[in-house]
């Protein structure tokens, strides 16, 4: 199924008698039973007002098309959505609807917020084939319940997005990266907390226990106008004067290294399962040790841990109870999402039942 209009999409869902597997670009590894419904026919930017920092696009619009349009005006999606293709070994073109449905955010999430924080409005078709809109195209909107957030990160299980409206931000003039070599995971987490707690507006804080040259590297990014970036990079480096610190100020090289953090490039082309763990940053090093993983990457100052483990590992059992949750991103041996406590699971089920009473949208994925 590949609808060309929202009305067609609604018709297809209304008349479906079989589970539907919703697919944008097919790059994020969702392969469920059911008829594949491709959103690629719903494509195109419907409104872009750089002076209002607002972009509205049909859900199947390729992300590349949106990024090109923003680039032309010196703007960007500030939440830095990751490209899953390298990690998942998938091909295809990521769509904006896929980004939103999976609430995909990258390293800058720690500073500016997640995809859901940039979402202004949605149009979607629920599991009964009803078209619903929520939010709009303005930056502040508290009119009624915020279904925009609910739809972001619901993985197509509550409705199929037909249109999304986003807040975009100016692209900074330049960037720099402070690189600290040789820290243990625990030292790195403390260093990142210190940097993120400083007034120097760190827009990325990651730690690679095995960096490109084999040694551990801790990375702190600053972005903005040239004078400000130079000042803040200098101040930050000064905070860690007693460590092995250097400042990378070539913007192209900075950009490249953060794309590799964003896409977890170190795990590309490897075997095994990949988990994504959201946790309290200061607990990251302890949790990282408990995982007994083949490889780890810390992002968000430690608040996000990527772990590569042998296929079929029950990482949740290794972690035990902790403040946060673990998602199986690559692999199939365990439930994808962390099981929820009973009271929350009841609400999730209730929402699923209301939005998709027949349980046909991405059946088995959530709720």
């Amino acid at each position: 199924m590949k609808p060309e209009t929202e009305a067609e999409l609604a018709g297809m869902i209304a008349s479906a008698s079989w589970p539907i597997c919703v697919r944008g670009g097919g790059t994020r590894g969702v392969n469920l039973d059911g008829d594949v419904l491709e959103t690629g026919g719903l494509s195109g930017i419907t409104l872009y007002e750089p002076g209002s920092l607002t972009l509205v696009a049909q859900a199947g619009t390729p992300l590349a098309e949106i990024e090109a349009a923003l680039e032309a005006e010196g703007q960007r999606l500030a939440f830095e959505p990751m490209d899953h293709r390298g990690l998942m070994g998938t091909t295809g073109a990521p769509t904006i609807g896929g980004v939103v449905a999976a609430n995909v955010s990258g390293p800058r999430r720690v500073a500016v917020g997640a995809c859901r924080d940039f979402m202004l409005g949605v149009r979607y078709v629920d599991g009964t084939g009803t078209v619903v809109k929520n939010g709009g195209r303005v930056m502040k909107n508290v009119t009624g319940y915020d279904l925009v957030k609910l739809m972001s990160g619901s993985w197509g299980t509550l409705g199929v997005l037909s249109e999304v409206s986003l807040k975009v931000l100016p692209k900074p003039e330049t960037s720099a990266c402070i690189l600290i070599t040789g820290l243990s995971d625990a030292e790195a987490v403390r260093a990142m907390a210190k940097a993120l707690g400083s007034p120097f507006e760190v827009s990325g804080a990651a730690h690679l226990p095995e960096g490109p040259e084999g040694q551990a590297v801790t990375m702190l990014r600053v972005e903005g106008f040239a004078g400000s970036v130079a000042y803040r990079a200098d101040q930050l480096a000064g905070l860690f004067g007693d460590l092995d610190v250097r400042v990378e100020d070539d913007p192209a090289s900075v950009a490249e290294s953060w794309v590799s953090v964003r896409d977890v490039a170190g795990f590309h082309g490897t075997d095994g399962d990949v988990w994504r763990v959201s946790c309290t940053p200061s607990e990251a090093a302890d949790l990282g040790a408990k995982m007994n993983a083949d490889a780890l990457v810390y992002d968000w100052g430690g608040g996000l841990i990527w772990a590569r483990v042998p296929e079929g590992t029950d990482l949740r059992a290794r972690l035990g109870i902790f403040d946060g949750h673990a998602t199986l991103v690559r692999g199939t041996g365990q439930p994808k999402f962390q099981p929820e406590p009973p009271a929350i699971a009841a609400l999730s089920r209730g929402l699923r039942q209301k939005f998709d009473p027949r349980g046909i949208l991405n059946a088995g994925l959530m709720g």
Partner: protein
Amino acid sequence: MQMPQPNASVLSRKAQIVARLREVIPQDAVISDEMETRAYECDALTAYKCPPLAVVLPSSTEEVAAVLKVCHQMGVPVVPRGSGTSLAGGALPTADCVLLGVARMNDLIETDYDNRFIRVQTGRTNLSVTGAVEADGFFYAPDPSSQLACAIAGNIAMNSGGAHCLKYGVTTNNLLGVTMVQMDGTIMEIGGAHLDAGGYDLLGLICGSEGQLGVVTEATLRILPKPEGARPVLMGFDSNEVAGACVADIIKAGVLPVAIEFMDRPCIEATEAFAKAGYPMCEALLIVEVEGSPAEIDEQLALILEIARRHNPVELREAKDADEAGRIWLGRKSAFGAMGQINDYMCLDGTIPVSELPYVLRRIGEMSKEYGLDVANVFHAGDGNMHPLILFDANKEGDLELCEALGADILRLCVEVGGCLTGEHGVGIEKRDLMVDQFAPDDLEAQMAVKDVFDPAWLLNPAKVFPLAASESRRSMALAAE
């Protein structure tokens, strides 16, 4: 504005209900005396008043759960209340409700600078959250004008904003976790100190749900390191259009000020008479504030001033020191007080696409003439969140109704140009009946379905947000079941 008929069965059982409440929480936490419940008869939308059946002032999550369980069992509606500063009537009681105030729950539970969060009971005021971490160089970003009085509970219920949200976002962008009690008394933890709660974004759903999904008793809030400094610049223009174009150009240039505030001539005149801040008399005035180190501020302001000069400003005023900065903000911060001196006023908060500013301001001017009521505009221009203040005389018969009609027309205009009814105040009762202008029946149905899941009996703050006609079948079903 209509409220539903109070439930006669609930009214007749007042004594039993109060007695049951006194069994589960301390005696002094239940108020049933008719003189004393008067203190809770309205919030900051003072045109509407109704004393509740009883008031409860619990001190803990467990007490909130106990109260809600009793009300749930006895079929009594509950209206939650933070500090009662809602401009939308979000905390307006009904005669048959138990009003649940969180004022006694104001503990600071935990501050954690390594993980940059603070956990508080939600009766705590907004400003006191920043107050708790300020000395250590941190702050809590959302800063509604009422921040001295308003409670975090109300901020979460209404998803409050403030002057600085262009850069830092509103409450929902700064909320990491909550302890919430459902209407049936179930206590749950959602989110926590980690970023991105798992599963469906229930946190996002609860924030801004106007106390209709549950009572939030504790909140984990994101705190941020304070910038090294901030400095405003004031600019005056001889037309709204030019000021609007200047705002768009600043944003397009890649500067992201923390605030861009806009005042039109009626507002400038009123505040000058009141606060004497020394503002230029012109058609439109902008206050733009940037943050950072002194050098960073200079860099950003230089760019902003260069853009402003291209628009032939009638005035450009930089602040050389804290005192001058204070004077630039003085008029803006006194604007509402100044209006209150002149007259009664109604403050709207529709939001529009920034590109529509000049057109909307012109239309508001025309409507103001048609209705014969003055309107002053002061608002957050960077994000298009308008605050038209309609001046009226509450003692003059028919003036309030006329004012409400003009307000409704202005909000419909906001929706027409692609905006919305409310940017940060919430729907409450004030904009409830206008929801049909923004949403189709299916859109409202989807939202009400969410309430069905969280509060199937529709007992929590039931007569708000949704037009009474739209929610009637659900509310009456709840009555019948009881």
